[in-house]
C-alpha cells in the first residue's frame, strides 16, 4: 500500500513537472504526460516505477471516463445547429478526408481490417484539448475562423462518440458474424435507451443526483458516471461511450454548469494518469518497426488537414490566412487517438497500434501548435485560385464634406 502510494505520487509529480517544463516552450501537456510514462516504464533504462502497466488500469480508466463524461456534459445541440449547413459541410469534408485517408493507410499497412478502422479513428479525430489551448494561447479566439474550428471540433467529438459506439462491438471478441450482429444490436439498444433518458428522463436523473452542496453533488454524479460507464463496458459498448452518454444526460439537467465546473479537476488529475499509463505501455524498442507507417500517417494528416481547411475556407468565404490557421490547429492529435488505441489493446488487436499511435500523437501534438503559430509563413503555399481573397466588405457610405 505504502509503495503504491509512493509510486503514484511520483507518477503525478513527474507528469506535472515535465508538462510544466514543456509549457515554457509552448508544448501541450498530453505528449509530456505520455513521455513521463515512457521514461519510468519497464521498457526504458533507468528507474522503473511500474513493472506492469496494468497496475494502473483502474485509475487510468477513471481518466478516460472523466474525459468523455466532461465532453458529454459540455455538449450542446446549439453548437451543431448554430453553425448551419456550412459547418456541417466543413466538418463532413474534414472527417471524410482524414478518416477516409486513415482507412486506406490502415489497409495499406496490412495489420488487419479491425486495425484499419482503429487507424482511421486515430488519424481522423483532432484533439479538442490541444486545439482549444492553441486558440487561446495564440490569441485567436476572436478570429473569423475560430467559431468554425471549434464547430468542427465539436462535430468531431460527436462523431467520435458514434464511432466508438459502432466500433466496440465490431472489434470485440465476437466468434461469428451472427454473434457480432447480436452484440451490435445489444449495444444499439443500450445506446438508444440512454439517448431516450437524455431526451426525456433528465428530470428524473436530476432528482436522483441533485444536491444543494457541491460536495454531495460530486459524490452523486461520480457515482452516476461510473455506473453508466461500467454497465456500458459489461454490455460491450466500451466504458468511454457510456461515460459520454452519462454526460449527455447531465447536460439536459439544470445541474449541467455546476457539474461541468466540478468535474474539471477530477478530469485533469485522472486524465494525466491515463496518458501516463499509456506511456508506460510503450516500448521504445518497438518504435523502429512502426516508424515508416507513422511518418507516412503524419505527412498524410498534415496534407489532408490542409486540403480540408482549404475546402472549409472556401465554403465559409474565409481567406488564405484563415485556411492556414484552420489546417494547423485541427491537425493536432491527442486524447482521442490514445483512447482508441487503449480500446484496441483491450480487444487484443495488433500490438503495433500502440507504438504507432505513440509516435503519431507525440509528433503531431508537438508540431501542430508550432505550425499554427507560424501559419502566416505557409499562406503563400495556398494557391489564390483555390481560396480567393474575400470581397472587401463595403464600409459605411462616406459622409460628404459640407460645401
Amino acid at each position, binding site marked *: 500500500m505504502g509503495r503504491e502510494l509512493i509510486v503514484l505520487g511520483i507518477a503525478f509529480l513527474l507528469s506535472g513537472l515535465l508538462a510544466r517544463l514543456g509549457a515554457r516552450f509552448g508544448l501541450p501537456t498530453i505528449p509530456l504526460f505520455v513521455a513521463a510514462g515512457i521514461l519510468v516504464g519497464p521498457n526504458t533504462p533507468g528507474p522503473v516505477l511500474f513493472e506492469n502497466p496494468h497496475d494502473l488500469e483502474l485509475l487510468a480508466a477513471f481518466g478516460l471516463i472523466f474525459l468523455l463524461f466532461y465532453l458529454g456534459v*459540455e455538449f*450542446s445541440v*446549439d*453548437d451543431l445547429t*448554430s453553425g448551419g449547413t456550412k459547418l456541417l459541410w466543413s466538418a463532413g469534408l474534414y472527417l471524410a478526408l482524414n478518416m477516409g485517408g486513415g482507412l486506406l493507410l490502415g489497409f495499406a499497412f496490412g495489420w488487419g481490417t479491425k486495425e484499419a478502422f482503429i487507424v482511421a479513428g486515430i488519424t481522423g479525430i483532432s484533439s*479538442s484539448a490541444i486545439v*482549444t489551448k492553441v*486558440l*487561446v494561447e495564440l*490569441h485567436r*479566439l*476572436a478570429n473569423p475562423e*475560430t*467559431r468554425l474550428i*471549434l*464547430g468542427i*471540433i*465539436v462535430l468531431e467529438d460527436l462523431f467520435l462518440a458514434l464511432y466508438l459506439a459502432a466500433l466496440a462491438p465490431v472489434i470485440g471478441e465476437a466468434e461469428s458474424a451472427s454473434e457480432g450482429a447480436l452484440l451490435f444490436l445489444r449495444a444499439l439498444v443500450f445506446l438508444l435507451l440512454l439517448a431516450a433518458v437524455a431526451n426525456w428522463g433528465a428530470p428524473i436523473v*436530476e432528482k436522483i443526483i*441533485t444536491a*444543494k*452542496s*457541491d460536495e454531495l453533488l460530486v459524490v452523486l454524479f461520480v457515482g452516476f458516471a461510473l455506473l453508466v460507464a461500467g454497465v456500458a463496458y459489461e454490455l460491450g459498448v466500451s466504458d468511454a461511450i457510456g461515460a459520454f452518454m452519462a454526460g449527455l444526460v447531465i447536460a439536459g439537467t*439544470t*445541474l449541467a454548469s*455546476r457539474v461541468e465546473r466540478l468535474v474539471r479537476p477530477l478530469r485533469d488529475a485522472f486524465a494525466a494518469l491515463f496518458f501516463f499509463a499509456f506511456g508506460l505501455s510503450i516500448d521504445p524498442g518497438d518504435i523502429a518497426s512502426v516508424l515508416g507507417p507513422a511518418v507516412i500517417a503524419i505527412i498524410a494528416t498534415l496534407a489532408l488537414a490542409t486540403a480540408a481547411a482549404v475546402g472549409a475556407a472556401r465554403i465559409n468565404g474565409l481567406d488564405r490566412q484563415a485556411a492556414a490557421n484552420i489546417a494547423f490547429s485541427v491537425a493536432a492529435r491527442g486524447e482521442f487517438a490514445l483512447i482508441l488505441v487503449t480500446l484496441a489493446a483491450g480487444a487484443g488487436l495488433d500490438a503495433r497500434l500502440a507504438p504507432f499511435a505513440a509516435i503519431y500523437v507525440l509528433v503531431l501534438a508537438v508540431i501542430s501548435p508550432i505550425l499554427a503559430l507560424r501559419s502566416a509563413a505557409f499562406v503563400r503555399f495556398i494557391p489564390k485560385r483555390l481560396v480567393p481573397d474575400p470581397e472587401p466588405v463595403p464600409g*459605411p457610405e462616406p459622409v460628404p464634406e459640407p460645401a
Partner: protein
Amino acid sequence: MTPDHPVPPEPQRLPGVGQRLDLADDDGRALTVIRRKDGTLELHHEGHPTYIPPTQARALGALASGHFRMAPGLFERVEGVLGGIDFDWVTVPDGAWAAGLSIQDLALRQRTGVTVVAILRGSIPILVTDPTQRVEVGDELVIVSPPEGRPALERYLARGS
C-alpha cells in the same frame, strides 16, 4: 456618438471556450468580447487583444450593468456565506403570462421556491416590501433562490405552470 442599438446583441457560444459577444464602437468598428470559462474577459479591438482577469471582469460587468455597487471581494464572500443559495436576476419576457399580476397573486414563493427581493424597472429599483407589487414585461426580478429555482421561475412567469 452613433445611436445605441435598439436590440441588445446576444452572446454566442464558443464550444469548449466560453462565450463571444460582437459589439461595435462609436465608429462602427468591430469590438469582440470573449468571456472564457474561467471568467477571464478578452476585448479584441482593431487587432489588439486586451485581457481582464476574472475578478476585475466581474467588477466591470457590475459597473456596466448600472445596477450594482461593487464591494471588493463581494462575490467570493457571497459564495462563502451563501453556499447553495443563488443570487440572480430574471427578466420578465415579452408576452409573459405573469405580466400585470402581483407578487401575491402569483404566489411565487409557494409555486417556485423563489423569493423576489427587488424589481429593476428601467433605472428605477423597487424593493419588494409590498406583496401587491405588480410585475411588468421587461422587469428585471432580483431573486434569491435554491440553485434549481431559476428555470422553474422562468417557466412559471412565461406560461403560468
